[in-house]
């Protein structure tokens, strides 16, 4: 039961960005992936989720032994993968509530529209409203979010912190087996970081989630404690260790890693 990444090579516009990434994130475990800007961290997260811009030239990515590569992004989500995005997209006119209702229903297998009876009621295929509403309210409490949020259009006019909370709210409802958190700590003040991290930890306990925390800074790792830390430079994992590695990195900076590597060569 793992998210496995095997020797993944990815190119964007003909340029190789990931140069052979291998990771094995077991369910229930937390891996941190730390690297400087431009090292390809976001490329890895988008590639795992199936963004069409990224071309896999070699390698594989599997969820519980099943390859993700032939799956569309929605199939990957339904297979249990979640990506908390660094820059969530705003969609005007679509309320957070109706979006969450549609997405939760899709992921939980409430059937799609194509299977709906010809003259069935609109949304008849979705999760029952009352049940869903109750569950959402519980998750809003967990993330200390005001229910008025639900009436706002998806990410439109949300502050940085609100967007990140909304991402974790989605995670809470979609109940993934594995989550990739792409710079979830960026744009969060210390209070928001604490609330978001508390939410993530609670969800990991609840769902026995495997977590891949992608971050530039060590800060979030004070709240979400990693079992394994990988240092990621220039499209590769260059060093793997335990939580102490993150602390050394925080003290010494990425320059230290580069020097270590140069010495190692």
């Amino acid at each position: 039961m793992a998210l496995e990444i095997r020797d993944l090579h990815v190119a964007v516009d003909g340029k190789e960005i990931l140069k052979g990434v291998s990771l094995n994130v077991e369910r229930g475990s937390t891996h941190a992936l730390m690297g400087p800007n431009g090292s390809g961290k976001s490329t890895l997260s988008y590639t795992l989720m199936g963004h069409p811009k990224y071309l896999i030239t070699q390698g594989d990515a599997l969820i519980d032994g099943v390859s993700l590569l032939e799956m569309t992004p929605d199939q990957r989500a339904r297979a249990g993968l979640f990506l908390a995005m660094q820059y969530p997209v705003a969609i005007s006119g679509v309320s957070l509530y109706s979006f969450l209702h549609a997405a939760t229903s899709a992921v939980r297998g409430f059937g799609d529209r194509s299977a709906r009876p010809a003259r069935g009621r609109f949304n008849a295929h979705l999760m029952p409203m009352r049940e869903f509403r109750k569950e959402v309210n519980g998750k809003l409490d967990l993330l200390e979010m005001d229910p008025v949020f639900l009436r706002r259009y998806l990410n439109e006019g949300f502050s940085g912190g609100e967007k990140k909370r909304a991402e974790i709210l989605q995670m809470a409802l979609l109940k993934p087996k594995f989550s990739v958190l792409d710079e979830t700590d960026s744009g969060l003040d210390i209070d928001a970081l604490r609330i978001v991290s508390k939410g993530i930890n609670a969800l990991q306990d609840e769902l026995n989630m495997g977590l891949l925390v992608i971050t530039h800074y060590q800060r979030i790792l004070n709240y979400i404690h990693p079992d394994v830390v990988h240092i990621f430079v220039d499209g590769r994992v260059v060093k793997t260790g335990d939580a102490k590695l993150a602390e050394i990195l925080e003290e010494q900076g990425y320059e230290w890693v580069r020097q270590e590597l140069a010495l190692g060569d």
Partner: protein
Amino acid sequence: MAERYNTTSMPSISTTTVEALSLPVGAEAAGAIADLHDEPDWMREARLDAWATYAAMEFPRKDEEAWRRTELSRYPLDDMRVVFSGTELNGIENLPPCWNYTLAPANLVSGVLVHCNGARTHATMRPEIADQGVVFADLHRALRTHGDLIRRYWMKGTTTRPDFNKFTALNAALWHGGTFIHVPAGVNIARPFQSLISYDADGGTGLHHTLVVAEAGSRVTLIQDRVSQDLRSAVNAEIVEIYAEAGARVRYISLQHWGHHRYSVSVQEAQVAQNANMVWVTGSMGGGMTKEFLRTNLNATQARSTMAGFSFPYDHQHVDQSTYQHHKAPNTYSDLLFRNVLRDRAQTVFYGMIRIETEAGGGTEGYQENNNLLLDDARARAIPGLEIIANDVRCGHGATVSRIDPEELFYLQARGLPRPDAESLIVQGFIRPIIERVPLAHMRDRLEEEIAERFWR
């Protein structure tokens, strides 16, 4: 005085007659309709005058601005017929079941009026609303009881007049089936009236005429929908006239679900008096080709109008909307927001005009926005226009044509929504600002469902 037609030589219509008869458009048909409904002389004359106008006019030419982008030669103009349905009052239950969805539950509306093939098939109104002197009736019957009132308002608009074009002349001569609302001064009708115009396979040419008169300080909403089951191509030449007298508030929700064989020209105009407020919502989902002239005249100070519209053509559907916001007095306000979504090889044309007359200077504001969202090989054209002859006014207009943002699509798919559901959600979000203005959750849900269905065809 026009010659009276001998009713015995003409289709004799009674509630027991079942066979449908049809006549080609012409003076004979005009007289037959007048006879059938025992219309007052002024209407009979108006019909025959209009027929003379029709006969003297040419069909619009392609080099006229309003017809430059809509191919009138595709309209089946050679085979226009007036159909006399033998049956009347045969009940809402006799409508094809697929049409019933257009009607909201009876407890949510003030009254329902259904026409099929130009004949009234169903009419209800809450007694407490009738008690306030409100008339919600088919126009033929209303002519007998409120003939003088109707005559005062009859076809005196800028576009809703017999000689505006050949189609308004045709309607003036041969209108057949009509919706009439009269709300006395100060009467406030909270729940909407609902009108359904329908044509079945024997339907013939659509010649419906709608007249709404909201007296001073009154308040009324009309939801009007249109459906047809045409086996062969048919023309629709329709007129809607709305009068919002001083301080009145009128909402007109105009929906269109014509079958794909129906080729329509619909001329709709509202006259807005001092301190009155006119709210339009227009939605075009059906029709082979649809040409709409939608006009608001702001005739006195503090008159306000909001025009909102959406269309979602697919396949080879064509929707052409000419809108006109005409400011004739100072301190008048109008805004317009039309949004179109196009699939397959569909086409839309939006030609919007704001005109502010010299005497309308001083505090007047007019705005207009047209946004188009394209999928597949569809094509949208937007031609906004401003004619401002006054000083001290505020105006703005804009038009956009865009496609679905792949990042939005990815975001929704990454949350487990299959691509058609993701597209549907984005499109619903795009049209939301219009749908929000439709009264009754039932109607909004129906429209959203219809939009979603187009992604699972």
